[in-house]
């Protein structure tokens, strides 16, 4: 039998996560999340509470537990992020919990997670997407388009910390677009200072 020696690669084909700091903003790739999507089947209830272990997940909101982030993606649909090293097969784990009440899809290789942290991030995000940022308070999640790429924007702390998700194959283009804007926002600030 052939012995394959496989080493994990990030969405950028590297062994270490992508990280870029420009001015006061930092974009970090977060490969340590396992991802799954959950859609409720007909006439089933209380699925969101099962995912979070108690709390319901309202429209356009996210709920964080000790290890898990659950966010609303559509009517009766959610994304779940968990610790990849502890629950790599998140979809299987959820399916075992939910049984026939919901359809679970593995998204580990479908989406990439980024964290955008720093100060005055509204200036960066308002150049990237059409979200009404004044309404995107802590705990809100919204799907949008960034650089023609469908993506999710999760607000962890308004203006200072956001979690972004995009399709894995778009990761380099997505990160490039965000870094370009970070550069231009920083340049403007430097010029005006």
């Amino acid at each position, binding site marked *: 039998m052939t012995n394959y020696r496989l080493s994990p690669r990030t969405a950028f084909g590297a062994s270490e996560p992508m990280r870029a700091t420009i001015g006061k903003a930092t974009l970090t790739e977060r490969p340590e999340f396992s991802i799954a999507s959950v859609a409720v089947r007909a006439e089933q209830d209380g699925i969101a509470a099962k995912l979070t272990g108690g709390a319901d997940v309202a*429209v*356009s909101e996210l709920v964080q537990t000790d290890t898990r982030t659950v966010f609303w*993606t*559509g*009517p009766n*649909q959610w994304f779940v992020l968990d610790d990849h090293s502890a629950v790599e097969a998140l979809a299987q784990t959820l399916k075992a919990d939910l049984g026939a009440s919901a359809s679970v899809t593995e998204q580990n290789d479908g989406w990439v997670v980024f964290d955008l942290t720093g100060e005055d991030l509204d200036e960066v995000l308002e150049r990237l997407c*059409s979200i009404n940022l004044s309404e995107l308070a802590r705990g809100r999640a919204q*799907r*949008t*388009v960034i650089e023609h790429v*469908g993506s999710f924007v999760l607000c962890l702390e308004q203006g200072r910390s956001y979690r972004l998700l995009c399709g894995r194959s778009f990761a380099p283009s997505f990160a490039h677009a965000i870094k370009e804007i970070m550069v231009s926002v920083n340049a403007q600030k430097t010029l005006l200072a």
Partner: protein
Amino acid sequence: MLIPHPLLGLRDAQEFTYFGDASLLDRPDGMAEGASEQFHDYLYLRDNPAGEHQELWFHEQGDRSWLVVTRNTLTHEIFKVEFATDVALARRSAT
């Protein structure tokens, strides 16, 4: 144009894709008598009203729901936006 999504509020029309006349929800029964005639009409015949019109829109870059938008084609005023599932279920229970 802004579309008032029933759950998410006002959203830019760029987030949506237009699919066509909401009569597409009324797919004929393929096993019924005269099905080929009915499918011909379903597929090719559309009203093209200058005024109130019901349309299917897909919230592609949002919550990915199908919506029925009731809109005035002359003024672009939007009267009503409903989930297509609700409209389809209501029509089914009405027949």
